[in-house]
């Protein structure tokens, strides 16, 4: 993990701050002077993981570049809930692109800054999973391939939420969406489709790729900081639960994210130039049911009858992640026996 791990101060680095820690060891979010780049009054749903993840990431980026930041934002919830004309929640220079061209817009901004000799001003592009993995994929791949000096942040809530929860290529197997209803012999989204953008980004061998999760703020901030130290194309994929689309309680947003990591469903990793450099280990491994059960988009797996086959399939995917990325420490695994 990139984040400094403080072994013991009552809570170590698990909490946002900690009055016992030296301020330099607390998170950006603990700081009363944080940018609050996404200010109050935005119209995101109660408990929105995307609103939270975006503020976490952009506040960290702002701190890392001395507030010299411009953001391009794809169409999607993050844009719609933050900027209904003529108001905006953004407290940074921010531009709304189209749904599919954010990476290209950001590339253009970076090019303009280069021409103007303003190398201290940094560029971020951000969008949802739909805008990233589907419609914006071509522009993004180009941005990677040309190694444009842009940090692209994808907020993955696993569907097209802004338009009413349609499936995207980031929607997991079995999940119910408006376009993958829970009917028929294989209810919900089909297994075996979709794509992993972090792995695709790694295949471009760009300088930096990372995944992060709203339940691990310290890790998320450290990754943004690391990304900001690097020039060229960088990609961070942030897992952001969506209470509306997933059918979860609004107070469970962070808890669900935590479960995604602790079950192995969402691997939290880091890579440079195509090589895996770090993984965030599972602290207390849990079965995938613990993650699935609180989500109404998976309710059909548990009633009227328990769909053991589908659950086993999801467990197998989690186990594969654990194996593939080494998410469980040998010692921790032995302890869990």
């Amino acid at each position: 993990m990139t984040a400094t791990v403080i072994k013991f101060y009552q809570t170590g680095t698990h909490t946002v701050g900690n009055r016992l820690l030296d301020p330099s060891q607390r998170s950006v979010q603990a700081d009363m002077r944080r940018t609050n780049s996404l200010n109050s009054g935005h119209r995101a749903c109660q408990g929105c993981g995307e609103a939270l993840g975006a503020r976490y990431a952009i506040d960290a980026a702002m701190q890392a570049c001395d507030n010299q930041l411009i953001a391009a934002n794809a169409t999607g919830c993050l844009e719609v809930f933050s900027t209904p004309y003529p108001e905006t929640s953004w407290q940074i220079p921010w531009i709304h692109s189209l749904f599919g061209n954010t990476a290209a817009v950001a590339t253009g901004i970076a090019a303009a800054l280069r021409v103007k000799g303003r190398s201290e001003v940094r560029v971020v592009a951000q969008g949802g999973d739909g805008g990233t993995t589907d419609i914006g994929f071509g522009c993004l791949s180009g941005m990677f391939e040309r190694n444009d000096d842009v940090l692209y942040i994808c907020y993955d809530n696993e569907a097209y939420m802004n338009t009413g929860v349609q499936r995207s290529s980031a929607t997991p197997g079995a999940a119910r969406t408006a376009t993958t209803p829970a009917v028929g012999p294989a209810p919900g989204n089909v297994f075996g489709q979709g794509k992993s953008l972090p792995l695709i980004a790694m295949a471009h061998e760009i300088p930096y790729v990372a995944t992060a999760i709203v339940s691990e703020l310290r890790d998320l901030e450290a990754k943004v900081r690391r990304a900001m130290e690097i020039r060229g194309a960088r990609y961070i994929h942030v897992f952001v639960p969506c209470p509306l689309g997933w059918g979860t309680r609004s107070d469970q947003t962070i808890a669900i994210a935590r479960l995604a990591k602790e079950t192995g469903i969402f691997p939290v990793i880091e890579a440079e130039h195509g090589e895996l450099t770090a993984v965030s280990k599972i602290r207390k491994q849990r079965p995938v049911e613990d993650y699935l059960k609180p989500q109404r988009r998976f309710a059909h797996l548990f009633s009227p009858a328990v769909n053991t086959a589908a659950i086993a399939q999801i467990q197998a995917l989690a186990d594969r992640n654990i194996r593939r990325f080494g998410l469980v420490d040998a010692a921790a695994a032995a302890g869990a026996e």
Partner: protein
Amino acid sequence: MEKPFAITLDVGSSLANKTGSWRTYRPRYGDRLPPCNNACPAGENIQGWLYHAESGDYEQAWRVLTQDNPMPAVMGRVCYHPCESKCNRGELDQSVGINSVERFLGDQAIKLGWKFAPPATASGKRVLVVGAGPSGLSAAYHLARLGHQVTIHEAGPLAGGMMRFGIPKYRLPRDVLEAEVQRILDLGVTLELNTKVENIEASMQAGGFDAAFLAVGAHIAKRAYIPAGGAAKLLDAMQVLRGMEDEEKPMLGRRVVVYGGGNTALDVARTAKRLGATDAIIVYRRTREKMPAHDFEVEEALQEGILIKWLSTIKNMSDEGTLTVERMELDATGFPQPTGEFETLEADSLVLALGQDVDLSLLNGVPGLEVEGGVVQVGPNMMTGRPGIFAGGDMVPSERTVTVGIGHGKKAARNIDAWLRGEVYTPAPKHELATFEKLNTWYYEDAPKTVQPTLDLIRRQSSFDEVVGGLNETNALFEARRCLSCGNCFECDNCYGVCPDNAVIKLGPGMRFEFNFDYCKGCGICSAECPCGAITMVPENA
């Protein structure tokens, strides 16, 4: 102003959009009662003083602690720490070593000479305290701090009560006790030793006292009828333990049998061992599970080579010191029944440790007093049936521990204070309990309990050196930081960080947080992610 193409309005901030109106539930900061505090018989604010110890401010920790209990160095050694049995951390790994940190703070205070702040005001009222045991000392301390003039009448030659004439030195070194007693006296409390109160009303009248607190303890050893030859050496536990404070230590011989199953029996047997007994045997009529003594004390005694004969009663003792012992059997109700099977045991002395009764003679003739089961009855305000006379500790219905005695002393002092002003003391209402389910324990780092050092066995069997050692500054800090701060904000900044709507206002170090209800949508994340359960969601229009 010239506007860009296709723009008619200036850019505004979303702050104009009061999303707080969406709310159906609202978060509320509120301290809950930590289970440790709730379990402490002396009513200590444990979480409160650990909070200061966590930041290394030991003096402030000690000051918060001593608001309730004036004797942390003693408590840190002899208290049976019911707080730790209730500590929420026990459900996570092991309970916080509250008692060991308390001892550290007490020792630190002695080492560095910390003193109590003198009382701010003088009430002009005089209160008589009878007995300088823990309960009397505690009452004297609290009364003095409330501005009253306190005189203690103590029958014995030294202060401390059972802390001096009961609890052995290897558990409570006397210099520790003396330092903490002296600090109480330094508040201006008058201690009159060798002053037995024979008649409470006469003493009050003679001294012109406005009220009295009685804490004479329970000192009369209970006897069992055991036929014994004239030459047999038959003693009671109180004689032996009290005798340990004299120049001439009690002569018990090589083979010592102790009869009883409480902590006192263990203390006597362990004392006998240290005095040179080769065999120190406890005879008890029930099983280990039924023994009133605490498990850790039984364990320590066994380590030191004390033998325990379970399910046995002593029938008689011959001149030569032969004991006849009958084996018992528990019946269906768990009560021991004789079996008619006998054996013998050789002993140089037999010590009876069968509990103590209260000497109530000082109360003879006091009207309105109620005595039941050998102890004085008191109301919830610790007052006896006689207005102005309060009582606490072992002489009233209680669990008979130092801690309970200290708690009674505090409670009585607060009620005496109100009574002297013609008022009624009403304790602050208790907060809702911070149960384990209210915590989000994900956030706490794993940390096993610090083990206190113990003296090596040889010295434990031959000397009265203290058995259990204290923590040092480093591990005391570590131990304090194991506290989960149940129910009470410890400024982890989680709520401030996790709100998707920036609706938590951080007020700065030591000042905690507030909600901005213009924008709080009531999602409940802050409440769910508060590690210690300090935020409750309540319906918006409640």
